[in-house]
């Protein structure tokens, strides 16, 4: 455990040093830039609340990727599942108007169903025809992208808008704010808690994890490997769909062009950084959200373009993963040396 924390912290530090080097080459001041980054993401209740709100889609798609990767299925379809969830929630919000107590859960259910539908399709293609879910989900991402672009440009377009987008959803479907904090943050935390419980404490989660580690062993031990595959695909699709629904209901309250552009890929990256751990996904998700949120503010007071956040993120994931895997080698070597020393004395 301490090893994992140590290598994680070490990775973050190295990544920030590499990021600082890139900024120095570009002629920016790294310390001032990082200072602004921290100030606009963590300095005070307002920025902190924004960071947490921005972390919602990242954490939820990250959770989806982490559970999928740890259980076996290579579900890289979070981007497509996210936009489908977002579209489903939007359509629900456009045509159904109920009191908030009913409207919000209903739209969330729509979002979950939308995401699960899209991942279920990939799961079905795998089950029925043995098509690799890795490429299928990637292709479905593209198809979902074009499909939603069509949906908001033709049948559900807001005629008054200048660029393709739907009209706003019913106001009763907007996620309310609790003080400065968006309620979607609470929902995200609840989702993490429930998934952690299912994954670590329930029999189903145990079977998923065992299948992910060794599917032959799981099958011989009596797990329904095929059924579990489908269950994992549906659950992870549902999580990505939920992320999409919350993006719409918590943010612009409508489906605008390019809505899901980066969230889901960032989520996949976060899952990789977190080594598919659920709690770690939450931590890294908030961390990445802080960088992204801070970058927007940073651009205002320094000359550094906010796009540097994307570069920094890619450096982060590479360095953190490399540090973790290399740290294992180093730790083992140190332990071996220690043992050898003990034996000789």
């Amino acid at each position: 455990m301490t090893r994992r924390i140590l290598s994680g912290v070490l990775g973050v530090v190295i990544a920030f040093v590499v990021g600082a080097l890139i900024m120095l080459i570009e002629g920016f001041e790294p310390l001032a830039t990082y200072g602004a980054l921290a100030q606009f993401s963590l300095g005070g209740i307002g920025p902190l609340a924004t960071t947490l709100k921005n972390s919602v889609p990242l954490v939820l798609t990250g959770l989806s990727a982490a559970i999928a990767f740890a259980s076996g299925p290579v579900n890289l379809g979070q981007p497509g599942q996210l936009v489908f969830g977002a579209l489903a929630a939007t359509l629900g919000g456009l045509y159904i108007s109920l009191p908030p107590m009913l409207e919000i859960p209903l739209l969330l259910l729509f979002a979950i169903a939308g995401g699960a539908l899209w991942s279920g399709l990939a799961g079905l293609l795998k089950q029925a025809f043995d098509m690799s879910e890795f490429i299928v989900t990637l292709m479905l991402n593209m198809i979902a992208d074009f499909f939603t672009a069509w949906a908001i440009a033709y049948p559900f377009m807001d005629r008054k808008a200048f660029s393709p987008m739907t009209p706003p959803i019913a106001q009763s479907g907007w996620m309310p704010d609790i003080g400065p904090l968006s309620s979607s943050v609470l929902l995200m935390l609840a989702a993490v808690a429930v998934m952690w419980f299912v994954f670590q404490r329930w029999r189903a989660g145990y079977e998923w994890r065992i299948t992910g580690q060794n599917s032959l062993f799981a099958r011989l031990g009596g797990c329904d490997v095929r059924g579990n595959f489908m269950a994992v695909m549906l659950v992870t699709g549902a999580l990505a769909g939920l992320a999409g629904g919350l993006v719409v209901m918590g943010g612009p309250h409508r489906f605008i062009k390019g809505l899901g552009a980066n969230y889901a890929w960032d989520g996949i990256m976060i899952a990789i950084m977190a080594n598919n751990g659920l709690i770690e996904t939450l931590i890294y998700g908030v961390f990445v959200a802080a960088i992204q949120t801070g970058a927007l503010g940073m651009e205002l007071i320094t000359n550094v373009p906010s796009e540097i956040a994307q570069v920094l993120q890619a450096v982060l994931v590479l360095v953190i993963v490399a540090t973790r895997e290399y740290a294992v080698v180093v730790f083992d070597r140190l332990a071996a040396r220690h043992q050898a020393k003990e034996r000789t004395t």
Partner: protein
Amino acid sequence: MNIVIGLITGMIAGATPILLAALGGTLTFYAGIFNIAMEGMMLMAAFAAVLGSFLFHSWVVGVLFAIAGAMILALIFIFFSVTLDTDEFVTGIALNLFAVGSTTYLLRQIFKVKGVFTSKLIDSIPNIHIPLIEEIPLLGPVVSGRNLIVYLAVIATIFCYYLVFKTRFGLRLRAAGYNPNSLDSSGVRTSQMRIYSLLLCAVFCGLAGAFLSLGYVTLFAENMTAGRGWISLAAIILVDGHPYGIALISLLFGFFDGLGLFLQNYGVSSQFTSMVPYIATLVALYVYARRNRERERSTL
């Protein structure tokens, strides 16, 4: 008649970047690397090509820049996955995201624009007109007048086949993937073969990227590779890496790419026509999976 010629030339233009990227990827495939960084390499190359061509007003420099751009990603890949032994899948995904992030960032930093950069100063790669063949009806307009990179892609396909199957280098390359331990024990370092394959992959992806931004169109747009790297990966898997098979599959994808553009003239909205190549990939995967299953059944 013009429609047919238009469809065929559209097919060739659509197939070229996928073919080149897949040829690069297949070399790493034979060397036993799960390389999914073609998308990023191509994107980086497309950006570098525009940069080089814009700065020096020469497409030759553009192509060299493109190869250098892809090479940078290949070197990072080598450093992480071969030297530090990081997971190849993770490295590939991170590199693809790095390519998207850094090209967006550099687009803003160097050209001060968001989204798309185009300029009259960018020199595009010329089309080659072959004197005698040009005169032949039907065949002439298809074979002649294509972009230089298209002809390079044809040569590259044959080159790849000979390199992989007819040379000592190719034998070692395949051994690196097939049985790394016995290659190591015979005195050839597997890691070295993998490094060579990644560098060669960068050259091919560099050409593919240069074709996208200096041949197919003359501009750079954010994320302009639009999943072509993933399609090229699918192409490799579908034919188990055989260069001629890859050429065939690429032409098939190119056909659907061209068909999509063609259908737009008939009132099908562009979003649906853009889906066609991806749906074609799914169908191809289905055929592949079925063939595999039948093969398994016949061996039982």
